[in-house]
């Protein structure tokens, strides 16, 4: 049988497995939105570690990071930001987790809307987060679709590949919600790490049998690609300003990306955060080191300088320089990275649409009692709608719209970082400050991304965050925060952390019980 047929069958088996896994728990997740969106806040430390780490690594990390390193040198690794995301996940996440337990929060908007006592701000944040999740998800599926075409030698057409990818990802979440996503992410984390190691071992033993990495680096010294192994790199991109800009884009704001933010609420206990503090940076090192070695050493030594399409180096290495089995597992690795990011983001979009828009505005604000089953049903309908929109985008690939939206996704997600941090740690952060900061940050991000070159060598995101933070602080100093907000979000949480007060654990179940009395 031809290798392309075997690879296609392998992809089909993988797709069926994912959908089956999601629908295994369809019935039980239909009962409550708490179960569907937060897996009953019961993820154990290992599952939380895997689902958080792999959700950060997108398909673009697997294909884009080696390409970025090949083009601009090892400084590109600064997009991990020295694993700062792990530190922030614990520092910020523990407080958010306490708030989630105390007040039943599930999404970033739940927290921001309540902390800044503004339904309008909540609606605004949920609208732009949902809007920019779709192109980001679309880019994951486009990367998968392109790779399937290359790996199967064109036997599986692009449209079929992206259609299968989109439907599989969507059905997987519709079936099982957060619990299913988290377990599948764990599988993908192991799969991704395993395939990266296999790819590196094969390429090293096949092409550098006499000295391994040392032989590869010697070849780099001779073929003119040695600059890749230093900062600021062959194009001078990664001086300290480039490093900071890249770290801000790729790492520091990671914790407020909607799907990562939501993971701070789903931990089963504080033990998750204790273990995440050392395990998350180590998991980054384990997964990212092989990616760096591919882009920094193996690709330049095997392909030489001036490779025409650097974005395709992983696809080319695994298909043209390795046997079909390696090509297949590399494709699975891409699936692992792409699907894990796409499903987590889509679930967070669904959670925000159903809880923060539908539930809050249709039920809570009108004083009506909500039906948890109805909320889950609505969440699933939102996922179906997002599936169709994503399908249209990835099938048509409207380059300009998707590219523009994708360029803005990361800077836009990051604009809730100042409001989140100041809301947690500064009593004086006010509604007016948060609105002024977030809106100005979004405007600066748009202007400096498309119309004006960002000054002094820093990225648009850096400037957007600076303006955002400044305005938040200045406007907050000129306005007042209601006393009950300070009591609820600062005095109460500080008393739990520093004075030994007990946690109330207010979740959907308890809220519903109270409502029914």
């Amino acid at each position: 049988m031809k290798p392309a047929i075997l690879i296609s069958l392998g992809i089909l088996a993988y797709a069926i497995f994912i959908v089956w896994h999601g629908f295994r728990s369809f019935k039980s997740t239909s009962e409550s939105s708490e179960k569907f969106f937060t897996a009953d806040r019961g993820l154990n430390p290992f599952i939380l570690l895997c689902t958080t780490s792999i959700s950060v690594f997108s398909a673009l990390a697997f294909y884009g990071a080696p390409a970025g390193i090949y083009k601009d040198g090892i400084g590109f690794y600064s997009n991990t930001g020295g694993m700062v995301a792990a530190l922030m996940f614990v520092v910020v996440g523990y407080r958010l987790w306490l708030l989630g337990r105390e007040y039943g929060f599930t999404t970033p908007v739940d927290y921001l809307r309540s902390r800044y006592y503004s339904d309008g701000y909540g609606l605004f944040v949920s609208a732009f987060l949902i809007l920019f999740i779709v192109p980001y998800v679309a880019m994951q599926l486009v990367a998968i679709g392109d790779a399937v075409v290359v790996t199967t030698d064109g036997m599986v057409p692009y449209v079929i590949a992206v259609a299968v990818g989109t439907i599989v990802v969507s059905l997987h979440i519709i079936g099982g919600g957060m619990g299913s996503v988290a377990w599948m992410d764990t599988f993908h984390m192991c799969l991704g790490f395993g395939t990266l190691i296999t790819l590196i071992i094969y390429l090293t033993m096949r092409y550098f049998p006499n000295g391994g990495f040392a032989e590869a680096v010697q070849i780099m010294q001779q073929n003119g690609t040695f600059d890749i192994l230093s900062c600021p790199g062959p194009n001078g991109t990664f001086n300290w300003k480039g490093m900071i800009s890249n770290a801000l884009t790729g790492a520091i704001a990671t914790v407020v990306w909607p799907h990562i933010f939501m993971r701070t609420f789903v931990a089963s206990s504080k033990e998750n955060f204790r273990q995440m503090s050392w395990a998350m940076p180590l998991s980054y090192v384990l997964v990212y080191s092989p990616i760096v070695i591919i882009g920094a050493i193996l690709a330049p030594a095997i392909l030489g300088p001036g490779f025409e399409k650097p974005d395709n180096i992983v696809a080319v290495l695994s298909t043209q320089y390795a046997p079909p089995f390696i090509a297949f597992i590399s494709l699975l690795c891409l699936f692992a990275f792409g699907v894990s990011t796409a499903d987590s983001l889509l679930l967070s979009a669904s959670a925000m649409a159903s809880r923060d828009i539908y539930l809050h505005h249709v039920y809570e604000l009108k004083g009506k009692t909500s039906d948890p089953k109805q909320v889950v049903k609505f969440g699933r309908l939102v996922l179906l709608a997002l599936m169709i929109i994503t399908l249209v985008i990835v099938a048509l690939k409207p380059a300009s719209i998707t590219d523009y939206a994708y360029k803005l996704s990361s800077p836009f997600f990051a604009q809730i970082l100042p409001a989140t941090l100041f809301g947690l740690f500064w009593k004086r952060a006010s509604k007016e400050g948060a609105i002024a900061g977030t809106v100005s940050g979004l405007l600066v991000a748009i202007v400096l991304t498309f119309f004006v070159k960002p000054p002094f060598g820093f990225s648009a995101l850096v400037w957007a965050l600076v303006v955002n933070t400044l305005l938040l602080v200045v406007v907050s100093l000129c306005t007042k925060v209601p006393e009950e907000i300070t009591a609820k979000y600062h005095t109460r949480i500080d008393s739990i952390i520093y004075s030994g007060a007990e946690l109330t654990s207010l979740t959907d179940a308890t809220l519903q019980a109270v409502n029914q009395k």
Partner: protein
Amino acid sequence: MSKTVTILFVIFNVIYFFIDYVLVTVLPNPLLFGWLPLQLGLLLFFPVVAAIVWGLYFNAFFNTQEHVK
């Protein structure tokens, strides 16, 4: 958590991130073990040191949170 420990933790992080974001770009770059440039070695493996320090600090911090169930 004692104030001294917290201050030391903050100082460690300031130094760590300064090295990782800024200093690494101007450090000399000799090859270690015949294949690993110093700058790449720092970027790849210095986070392991950070993981150990963060783990120790937060382990001590969460020992103070026994009342949070």
